[in-house]
C-alpha cells in the first residue's frame, strides 16, 4: 500500500485489488488504525470510543475487501491461438514507424481505422503488423507478438481501445508493462510541456482540444492519453479527434472542406461525428512531454463568465482514475501517486472558446 497527501485528502493505493482510496482527514484515522491493527478486535479497541461500533466495522470491512487479492487480469485475452485469415492490408506511417494493418472484413477495419486513416501510406514496407477480424462471434485482434483478444459486439469500444494501445506500442516501440496508464483524457502541448484535459463525455474536452490545436498548440493525444512509467511523460498518439455533431459549427471555420468529411453515426446520444486529423507537431523529434497541469473541462451551453479555479481533487481523480486503464503494478502506482502530488489541478468553466484558449495561454504559453 502506498499513500500520499494531495490537498486536504489522503490517497491510498491497494496493490492486491489495484484500487485507489481517497480519504479526508476525518476518515483517515480509521484507515491508519486498520493499517496498524489487522485483527478486528484490536482495531475496534484502538479507535476512539465515541465512534459507533457499526461505523468502525463498516470501515474495517471496506479496507479488508480492498486488501484482498482480486482478479484484475484481462478478461478478453484468448489463451489458445486463434487463426485469423486476413488477406487485405492497409499501411500507415507514424513518425519513423511503418505499420501494416491486416483485416478480414471491412467491418473490422472500419471500426478501428477511422481515427488513423490520415496516416495511410502507399508504401508496403512495415516494421510491425496488427491483425483485426470480425465474424459472427464478434471482433478479434492479434498484436505483433501474436497475442490474441476477442470481444463480442457489445464491447466494440474495448476492441477499439486495444487496437489504439497496440498501435501505441508499435509507434513508440514499447511493451504494455512499460506504460503507467492510458488516461481517458485529451492532451495538448506547447512544444515543451503538456496539459491534460479531463471531463466526462460531452464536457467539451475534444472540441476544446481541437480549437487549441487550431490556435497553435500541439495535439498530443485525444480521448486516450498514454503515460510511461519510467518518466511520467505523456507520449504522442496521433489519432484523429472525434468531434460530435453539436460542435461541427465551432470547428468548421478551421477545417478545409469540413462539409466533405464523412459523418459517422455513433448513437442517439452522441449523434454523428467527424474525425479531424491532428496537425503536424512543432518538433517532430520530441514525442513525449512532461505534464504539470490537469484541467477539468466544463463547457456550458448557456453563456457564462469563463472561470478557472482550483479543481476539486475528488472529482478530478474520479475522472482520471475510474475511466482509465492503470497498470496493475505497485511500482507504477507509486510513480503515479508521486506524479499526482506534484500536479496543479484546475477546473475550467466556459462558454466562449476564445476565453478558454486565453486561459490555456496563461497556464502554458505558446512558445
Amino acid at each position: 500500500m502506498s499513500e500520499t497527501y494531495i490537498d486536504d485528502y489522503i490517497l491510498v493505493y491497494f496493490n492486491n485489488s489495484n484500487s485507489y482510496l481517497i480519504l479526508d482527514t476525518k476518515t483517515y484515522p480509521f484507515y491508519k488504525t486498520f493499517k496498524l491493527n489487522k485483527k478486528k478486535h484490536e482495531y475496534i479497541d484502538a479507535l476512539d470510543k465515541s465512534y459507533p461500533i457499526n461505523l468502525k466495522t463498516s470501515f474495517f470491512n471496506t479496507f479488508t475487501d480492498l486488501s484482498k487479492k482480486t482478479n484484475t487480469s484481462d478478461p478478453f485475452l484468448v489463451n489458445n491461438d486463434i487463426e485469423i485469415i486476413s488477406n487485405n492490408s492497409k499501411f500507415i506511417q507514424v513518425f519513423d514507424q511503418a505499420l501494416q494493418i491486416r483485416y478480414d472484413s471491412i467491418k473490422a477495419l472500419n471500426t478501428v481505422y477511422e481515427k488513423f486513416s490520415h496516416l495511410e501510406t502507399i508504401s508496403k514496407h512495415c516494421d510491425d503488423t496488427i491483425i483485426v477480424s470480425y465474424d459472427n462471434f464478434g471482433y478479434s485482434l492479434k498484436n505483433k507478438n501474436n497475442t490474441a483478444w476477442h470481444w463480442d459486439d457489445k464491447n466494440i469500444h474495448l476492441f477499439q481501445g486495444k487496437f489504439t494501445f497496440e498501435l501505441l506500442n508499435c509507434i513508440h516501440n514499447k511493451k504494455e508493462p512499460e506504460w503507467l496508464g492510458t488516461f481517458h483524457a485529451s492532451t495538448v502541448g506547447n512544444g515543451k510541456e503538456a496539459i491534460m484535459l479531463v471531463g466526462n463525455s460531452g464536457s467539451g474536452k475534444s472540441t476544446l482540444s481541437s480549437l487549441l490545436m487550431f490556435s497553435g498548440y500541439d495535439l498530443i493525444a485525444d480521448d486516450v492519453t498514454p503515460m510511461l512509467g519510467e518518466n511520467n511523460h505523456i507520449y504522442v498518439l496521433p489519432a484523429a479527434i472525434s468531434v460530435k455533431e453539436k460542435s461541427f459549427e465551432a470547428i468548421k471555420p478551421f477545417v478545409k472542406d469540413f462539409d466533405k468529411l464523412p459523418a459517422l453515426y455513433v448513437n442517439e446520444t452522441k449523434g454523428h461525428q467527424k474525425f479531424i486529423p491532428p496537425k503536424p507537431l512543432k518538433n517532430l523529434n520530441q514525442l513525449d512531454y512532461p505534464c504539470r497541469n490537469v484541467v477539468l473541462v466544463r463547457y456550458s451551453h448557456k453563456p457564462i463568465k469563463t472561470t478557472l479555479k482550483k479543481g476539486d481533487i475528488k472529482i478530478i481523480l474520479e475522472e482520471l482514475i475510474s475511466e482509465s486503464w492503470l497498470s496493475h503494478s505497485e511500482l507504477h502506482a507509486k510513480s503515479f501517486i508521486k506524479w499526482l502530488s506534484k500536479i496543479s489541478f484546475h477546473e475550467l468553466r466556459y462558454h466562449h472558446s476564445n476565453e478558454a484558449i486565453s486561459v490555456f495561454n496563461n497556464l502554458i504559453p505558446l512558445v
Partner: protein
Amino acid sequence: MRKKNKNKITRKEALKTMGKYAAMTAVGTFMILNPNRTHANSAVGGGDNPIS
C-alpha cells in the same frame, strides 16, 4: 412481526452495484476508485455505420 424491507441491500451488494462510489459517513468522506481492467476508447463510429 417486522416487515421485511425489500429495498435493503447488503453492504457487499451496494459495493458491487456502485463500483466506484463516494461515501458520506457521520465523520467524513471517502471514495474508492477502480481503474478499468482493459483499454477502452470512447464509443466512436465504425463497423457498419453508414457514411452520410
